[in-house]
């Protein structure tokens, strides 16, 4: 089986964000970056399928040069090679633009499955994978918790998460696009051997112009302002050392809230 995994690089999970002076983006300078959480699970699923059926796992990333580091991590986990669609000036923001350049790149490739994360941890639009399926004319399933492939029958079965503890098992012909949910398995550790091997694996760079996509002709979503949420319903913050704050809290829970 030949599997493409869409991999995005995002700020690390525990980042404390600051807004840039222009007020429309975060201060990126001092942040560390990592593979988007759902995407890492998508890669893990792809590697498990490869262990079972053989074949090739290829990373597909849209990003700046910086993203190469996250791709190397993916290669160290076991992916065979990568394709980086270069977007040095952060032109590709809208999901449809990102899906379009990915689709044009994939039209030159062969594959049985495309796995993507359900949602990114930066924009969080939860759109790109499904749009990619539409642009390539493939069936899709979202919020996938389990994947079972049948390469002989050219079918794939996916367990989809639904609301309130319900799940749905669906089946579709391959090739197909699945968007993977975070937390569905255990991410493998990268071995030293894997890290060393990753250095020699190919990351092919594709310039945006090469994809032939006219991004300016596509619908665009633009962030005009980014800010800390002010819900107007902020908690009353209790101050002091642990003994002091818990004494205040217990007093308030008894006398104000009357819940204990």
């Amino acid at each position: 089986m030949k599997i493409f995994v869409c991999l995005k690089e995002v700020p690390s999970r525990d980042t404390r964000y600051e807004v840039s002076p222009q007020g429309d983006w975060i201060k990126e300078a001092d942040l560390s970056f990592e593979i988007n959480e759902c995407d890492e699970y998508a890669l893990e699923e792809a590697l498990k399928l490869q262990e079972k059926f053989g074949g090739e796992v290829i990373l597909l990333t849209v990003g700046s040069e910086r993203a190469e580091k996250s791709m190397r991590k993916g290669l160290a986990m076991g992916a065979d090679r990568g394709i980086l669609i270069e977007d040095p000036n952060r032109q590709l923001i809208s999901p449809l633009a990102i899906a379009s350049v990915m689709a044009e790149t994939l039209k030159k490739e062969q594959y049985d499955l495309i796995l993507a994360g359900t949602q990114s941890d930066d924009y969080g639009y939860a759109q790109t994978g499904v749009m990619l399926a539409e642009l390539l004319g493939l069936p899709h399933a979202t919020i996938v918790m389990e994947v079972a492939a049948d390469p002989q029958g050219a079918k794939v079965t996916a367990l989809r998460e639904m609301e309130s503890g319900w799940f749905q098992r669906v089946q579709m012909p391959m090739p197909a696009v699945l968007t993977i949910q975070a937390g569905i398995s255990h991410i493998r550790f990268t071995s030293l051997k894997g890290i060393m091997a990753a250095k020699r694996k190919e990351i092919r760079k594709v310039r945006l112009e090469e994809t032939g996509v006219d991004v300016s002709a596509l619908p665009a979503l633009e962030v005009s302002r980014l800010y800390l949420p002010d819900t107007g319903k902020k908690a009353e913050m209790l101050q002091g050392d642990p003994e002091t704050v818990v004494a205040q809290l217990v007093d308030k829970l008894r006398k104000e809230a009357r819940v204990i």
Partner: protein
Amino acid sequence: MAEKIYVLIDHANNRPRNSSLEALAMGQKMASETGMEIHGLILGADLGSVTEQLSRYELASIIVVENPSLREYNPDMYVHALAEILASDRPNLFLLAHTYQAIDLAPRLAARLRTALITDCIGYKTGDGSISFVRQMFRSKLNADVTVKSNHPWLVSLQAGAASADTLRPGNAPTVARPIDLSAVASRRQTIETIEATKGKVDLTRAEIIVGVGRGIKKQDNLPILQELADALGAEIGASRPVVDNEWLGRERQIGSSGQTVTPKLYVACGISGAIQHIVGMKNSGCIVAINSDPNAPIFNVANYGIVGDVLEVVPALTKKIKQERAT
């Protein structure tokens, strides 16, 4: 021709879903502020009862698309039907609730129409003749105003709670049947089964007090510290998704959009940052206490009382204090 807002109404068991009624309420508000017409749009089979319930709201019309192929949700059928209607009617806005179904459906529809989709919005702002949509980014830690450059219709999905269904204006909406031919559309995705995962589950919905456990407890070995607090309070233990994914606690204790929705009189969130998927499952608790080391954690926006500090220090102190109080 008047400018229009279409609102997709999802339904189950012959009733409109509450999340769709919230989207309808948001649509009514936008319509009255902009002078646009608002129409409800409903897909399915045997829709008489749902349509009748919707006709009691103030809407320009309810567009009813009945077809046996639309009885259950299926992406190929639903995208085809909606794309055909939106391409011919060209409303300015198409609103829907940001549900698991919307995540499956809306991006495919937007890509087919080559139009913009703004997902998971919590509100909108108008000014200077333009509109921007407010949505959370960076794991709910920041808010963004998003502007759109695209032809119409713009597709907008709304987070649960973005508007209240209680504010829906009553009226008497006419029904318009909209026949659609889906005989040439092949459904590629088959549903094999629908399963409820949490068998033998813990019913957290009846708990009066819940101690919610998040990733901030750092490791499973620290669970007894939280259990002691729960015992002192007579509380049940609940969990955020990462805790369940790490298998520190079973999925039957998960609270949030993919777990249980709880409304205890007291919810103590310990080391839970407050991703929206968790918040929707506990925000209607009577009193919410949040203990977290990050002062900007979104959990503090829904809490009544907040403590910035290390869960592993604050919780033992709290347990001790409560035991003292209970002893007197």
